[in-house]
């Protein structure tokens, strides 16, 4: 065949009704982060394995960077703890607000319901 539209029509006809055609979500869901995920992220744990060089022949640079991280571990530990404490407080605050909103919504529903 010579026409791309013809190719598309042939492909659609061949795929019609197959499991794969119907099962895969084509668009991504809304990317809102759940509070549980937020809480997981709150406690940060920097990994030395993720310190590396993207340059060609970067192995010695990676080694130097990891050595620096090791030498600065006391400072990095303090900084991580400080950041985690803040993150955890924010996550907990969001959870409390979420709970409060749920309680208020429930109360509003009860109030709006006509008496039996």
């Amino acid at each position, binding site marked *: *065949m*010579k*026409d*791309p539209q013809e*190719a*598309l029509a*042939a*492909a*659609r006809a*061949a*795929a019609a009704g*197959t*499991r*794969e*055609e*119907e*099962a*895969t979500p*084509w*668009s*991504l869901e*809304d*990317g*809102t*982060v759940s509070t549980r*995920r937020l809480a997981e*992220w709150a406690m940060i744990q920097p990994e030395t394995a*993720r310190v590396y060089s*993207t*340059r*060609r022949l970067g192995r010695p640079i990676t080694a130097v960077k990891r050595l620096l991280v090791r030498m600065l571990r006391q400072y990095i530990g303090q900084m991580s703890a400080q950041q985690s404490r803040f993150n955890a407080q924010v996550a907990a605050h969001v959870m409390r607000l979420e709970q409060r909103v749920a309680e208020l919504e429930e109360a509003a529903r009860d109030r709006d319901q006509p008496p039996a």
Partner: protein
Amino acid sequence: MRVDQILCAAGPVDGVTGQALAYRRLLRGWGWQGEDYAPVQAAGMPGGAVRPLHQLRPARAEVLVVHYSGYAPGLAGLVAAARRSLLVSHNVTPAHYFWASDPAEAVRCQLGRAQLGELASLAGALAAVSEFNAADLRSLAGREVSVIPVLFDRRGLPDSRPHRTSSPTVLFVGRLTPHKRQDLVIRAFARWRTREPDARLVLVGTPLSPDFAATLAGLAAELAPGAVAFESGLSAGQLWERYRAADAFLCLSEHEGFCIPLLEAFHFGLPVIARDTGAVGEVIGEAGVLVDGDDGVGTVAELLGIVVSDGELRAELRVRAERRLAQFAHDAVGVRLREQLAMMAAS
């Protein structure tokens, strides 16, 4: 005439950096002066190609061109101080694609979107690299936005003579990020591979994060074990070899402000199957096969089989791709850019 350019960030394999440097070659060819500046530069940028942003004196140039692709602090003051400024939007990816996988990137995108609106109100003239981006910028700025397409300079590329391997190979080139939907590419490829067990998929691109790369690698290992290669940090020569070794280019991105790899695939004579979202449809025109929101991975898998095996269709798509590339050629885009800049300088 002096035209200075600002990039939000510069990198050796960054498409926007490539565009700014291509503009610079054009400007120099016309005998115009100027320098290019960026607040941050990735490793591997050739020394002196782009200068640190703090060295820019915005009032020095007749026109300051801002290539906008993401948040960079301090741009508003520079645009406000310029004698004339042209804001070129290369698109900012919507933040919602990143909240779940990389919140810091999501915050940068959110800030970038707000900054784009602010700069649009300050800049003398507005432009975008696609009609899709132009429409977006028009809705933010409420005024005219011209389209200056991506300048695709084929002179630096090797010829398109294929160097095919014995295994049919599908290629996609783009950063590994949620909106590029490499997960769908893997699913469609895996479906097709049930009939082509020797088939290979090559995904070229730097991952958003190690976690995201691991998620995609896990999906590939589950659906097409041993058949999917993830590659990043390739030199230009190595990238061109991947195009030459491929049999089809598959792009199922959910959001694209332009997608230069589509033009690269055209150059190397690859049949392109792509999803009609963002600017993809206007870039491809009739030179590829466009699937839409009602199609699924089953249709894409069937299409892979057709475009890889049908010689007549491949030949037709190559002819159409050559015609399409002419619209992004040096001369065609150069004329539009020169008109825009000359008009601004004269005002």
